[in-house]
């Protein structure tokens, strides 16, 4: 095992995780907002924000899917050491991380069941940039409307139609995070 694997965890786990969770909760509760998410130093290509999210939310109880370039030995070793989440195929994943193209098609992921809509995957979409300009967002957490740059509109519109089932998304770039729950209605810019 590479010694680098041992690095990049939280310096002070209970406190770092608490701050990280608050940022994650705030963005999930308020689509269209961006927060800073830091503490983890994961191996490339994983962003600080994605690594911090995984460190905050995942453990041996949460099957994790690595998509595309994110499924590499360095990332796998880092997750095995710091998180212990089992690495699984898309259909069994509670969490998945990768860029938009690698995560597609989305219908591979669990959307929950009518009696347990919470048993759905949360996708961590790594982006080139996050911005609060773009598609128009409406729904819970948004006073009137908000805006956010999305990789596309249609996938999120389809996802919202599944409500109360559906996927929930985090978007990460560097040390920034934003989110889009299944309840948000997206209108293309």
């Amino acid at each position, binding site marked *: 095992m590479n010694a680098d694997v041992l690095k990049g965890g939280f310096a002070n786990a*209970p406190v770092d995780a608490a701050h990280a969770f608050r940022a994650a909760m705030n963005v999930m509760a308020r689509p269209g907002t961006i927060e800073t998410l830091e503490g983890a130093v994961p191996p490339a290509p994983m962003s600080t924000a994605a690594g911090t999210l995984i460190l905050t939310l995942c453990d041996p109880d*949460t099957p994790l899917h690595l998509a595309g370039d994110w499924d590499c030995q360095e990332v796998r070793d880092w997750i095995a050491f710091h998180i212990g989440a089992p690495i699984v195929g898309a259909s069994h994943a509670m969490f998945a991380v990768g860029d938009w193209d690698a995560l597609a098609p989305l219908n591979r992921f669990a959307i929950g069941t009518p009696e347990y809509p919470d048993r759905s995957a949360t996708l961590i979409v790594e982006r080139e940039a996050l911005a609060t300009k773009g598609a128009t967002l409406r729904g819970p957490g*948004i*006073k009137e409307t908000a805006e956010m740059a999305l990789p596309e509109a249609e996938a999120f519109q389809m996802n919202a139609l599944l409500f109360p089932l559906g996927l929930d998304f985090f978007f990460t770039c560097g040390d920034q995070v934003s989110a889009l729950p299944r309840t948000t209605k997206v209108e293309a810019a």
Partner: protein
Amino acid sequence: MSDYNFAYLDEQTKRMIRRAILKGLAIPGYQVPFASREMPMPYGWGTGGVQVSAATLTPDDTLKVIDQGADDTTNAVSIRKFFEKTAGVATTEETAQASVIQTRHRIPEEALREDQILVYQVPIPEPLRFLEPSEVETRKMHSLEEYGLMHVKLYEDISKHGAIATSYAYPVKVEGRYVMDPSPIPKFDNPKMEMAAIQLFGAGREQRIYALPPYCQVVSLDFEDFPFEASKADHPCDMCGAEDSYLDEVIMDDAGNRMFVCSDTDYCASRRAAGHVGAQAAALEETAA
């Protein structure tokens, strides 16, 4: 600080609770099952709220705890002390100063802001439970959006009493989808639930967490000809004169004389500090002195 982990719970438990909170926010009003832990206070004393707060707090937070709207009721004191000891957080009685507010049975009178979080203690999270005791059945009813039973119950009230005979824990419909129990707050508080703050609900014994994101649509169930009414005692506060706050009725003597005072003790105190005076404030100050 203490021998326990920050905010008492171990990290794995917090992660489990945090995942439930996020799914709760993504599916407003839906009750997310979570593996509630035994806490060092009894079930029924707010173990669900305490676990949600423990998973939410950071060392930078300022915590306020109220029970019946008051900061100095014994259980509010006990929970506040628990977090002072296990999380080392600052505490306050001032609603405006708090970043996290844990509550039992009330929503503060002062409007909450976007940077605040309100955590409710919930005894029975299932709004359909008293109509249908089986969890298997109520889960099915939620999945099918089958809420006829609830409307029948409310309608029976009307035919029997001429009004809906539910005065607290008054059911609401969230975003047009899930019928939700707002916890045993008086129905006076129901309209406040469409607010700027994040609202989190924890039911420890029943192992459920649910949530409302800010500005979420929360509609109290009613009928066109019998619209919902947020009622309170028809009286101003005898201490601060407030006309818009929920009131406690306090029996003053053997003759049954009563006075009405704000249940939200911080609201009442800050109004009095600002110079508002109720009808009996002067008499009371004498007694206290």
